[in-house]
C-alpha cells in the first residue's frame, strides 16, 4: 500500500528521496538500493488495519502507557465505574505473565481480553489485532488498551489506537518526562496519577512535571487525579467524552486520527 510513499520522511531527510535515482553502484561494484522505508512499516500497516476495524464500528480506541504499577488498571476500574451507564467499554490488557488485570476488569462485568506477552516488553499491532477479533466491536463504544508497564518500548509501536494516554504516578518523581521523553511526547493526554499521595510527598511538584513536559514541546493536557477519589476524575472523564465526540464526528466525515503526530508528520503520513 505505501512501500514508496516515504512514511516518516521529514524535512531533515527529504532531500535524499528527491535527489537522484533509486539505484546506485558503490565504488566496489555492489548495488546500493536506496529505500527510505519506515523500519516498522509492517507493524504500521497492521495498525492502520486495526484503526479501520475500530473506526468502522464507531469505537474509540485509547492506549494507556506508564511504568509498572502507576495505576493503569486502577484508573480503568474507576473509569468503568463512572462511565458504565454512558459508554459500552471493553479492555485489551497486555501483561507479561498473569491474567490478574483482566480478571479485575471482568469482575466489573466488562469484557477484557488478555494478551500475555511473555518476555515482550510492549504490545504490537499484530497482538492487538488478534485480541480485537475476540471482541464484538458492534457492541462497544470505547476500547482501552492497557499496554505493558514500561516507559520505553510501548512508545515505538503503533497499535491502531486513536489516542495515547501516558500516566505518571506521583511516587515516580517529577523528572520522569525528561528521562523518558519519547513516551511523554507521544501522549495526547498526560495523567498525574495517585494524586491522593501528594500531601505525603514533598519532592513531587505537579508544576515541575508539567514544565518538563512542555520542554518536550508537548501541548497535551496534564491532569491530576486519583483512582481512589472519584471526585478527582472529572477532568479526565470530560476529556474522554470530548475525545469520543470528536472521533464520532471524524468517523461520520469518513476520517480518522492517529495518536499525537505533529502537523508536518501528519501531512507526510497521509496514507493513513
Amino acid at each position, binding site marked *: 500500500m505505501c512501500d514508496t510513499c516515504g512514511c*516518516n*520522511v*521529514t*524535512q*531533515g*531527510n527529504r532531500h*535524499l528521496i528527491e535527489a537522484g535515482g533509486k539505484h546506485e553502484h*558503490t565504488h566496489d*561494484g*555492489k*548495488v*546500493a*538500493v*536506496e*529505500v*527510505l*522505508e*519506515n*523500519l*516498522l*512499516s*509492517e*507493524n504500521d500497516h497492521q495498525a492502520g488495519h486495526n484503526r479501520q476495524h475500530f473506526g468502522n464500528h464507531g469505537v474509540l480506541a485509547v492506549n494507556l502507557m506508564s511504568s509498572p504499577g502507576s495505576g493503569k488498571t486502577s484508573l480503568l476500574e474507576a473509569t468503568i465505574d463512572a462511565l458504565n451507564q454512558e459508554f459500552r467499554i471493553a479492555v485489551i490488557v497486555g501483561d507479561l505473565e498473569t491474567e490478574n488485570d483482566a480478571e479485575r476488569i471482568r469482575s466489573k462485568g466488562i469484557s477484557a481480553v488478555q494478551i500475555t506477552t511473555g518476555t*515482550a*516488553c*510492549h504490545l*504490537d499491532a499484530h497482538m492487538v489485532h488478534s485480541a480485537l477479533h475476540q471482541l464484538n466491536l458492534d457492541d462497544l463504544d470505547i476500547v482501552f488498551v492497557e499496554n505493558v508497564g514500561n516507559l*520505553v*518500548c510501548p*512508545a*515505538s*509501536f503503533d497499535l491502531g489506537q486513536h489516542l495515547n494516554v501516558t500516566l505518571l504516578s506521583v511516587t515516580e518523581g517529577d523528572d520522569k*518526562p*525528561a528521562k523518558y*521523553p*519519547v*513516551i511523554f*511526547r507521544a501522549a495526547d493526554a498526560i495523567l498525574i496519577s495517585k494524586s491522593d499521595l501528594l500531601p505525603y510527598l514533598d519532592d513531587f511538584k505537579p508544576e515541575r512535571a508539567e514544565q*518538563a513536559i*512542555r*520542554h*518536550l*514541546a*508537548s*501541548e497535551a493536557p496534564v491532569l491530576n487525579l486519583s483512582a481512589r477519589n472519584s471526585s478527582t476524575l472529572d477532568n479526565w472523564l470530560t476529556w474522554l467524552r470530548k475525545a469520543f465526540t470528536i472521533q464520532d464526528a471524524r468517523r461520520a466525515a469518513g476520517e480518522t486520527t492517529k495518536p499525537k503526530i*505533529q*502537523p*508536518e*508528520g501528519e501531512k507526510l503520513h497521509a496514507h493513513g
Partner: protein
Amino acid sequence: MHELAVCQAMLEQVAGIAAREQASEVTRIIVRIGPLSGVVPELLEQAFTIARSGTIANQAELITEATGIRVRCSQCGAETDAGITRMICGKCGDYRTQLLSGDELLLASVELNRAEQAVE
C-alpha cells in the same frame, strides 16, 4: 529490548528487497535513527548480530546513522536545533514547536551482490 523486534522487522524488509533485486547476499544495511524514535542504536546493533544469522544478511554490516533534532517554532517561525529534553524554540524559547526531524526510524539503503555477480 524492543530493539530485537525492530531488528526482525528490518530484516524482513531487507529480505523482501533482496528477493526483488535477485541478490545473492546483502553486504551492508544503512538505517537512520533519530534520538526521538525510541530505538537505541547500540541496542539495535547488538540485536542485529543475533537476528541476522540464518538470513540473507548473515554477513552484512549494519550502519546506524544518527539524525539531529530540528524544530520549527509555531510562534516566531524560526527553525532551530533542539535537544531531546529541550524541544523549545532556540530563538524565542516558546514550547509550541513542531518537530522537523529527529524521530526517524528508517531503512535508508541496502547494499547487495546480485546473483550473477556472485558467480564469477
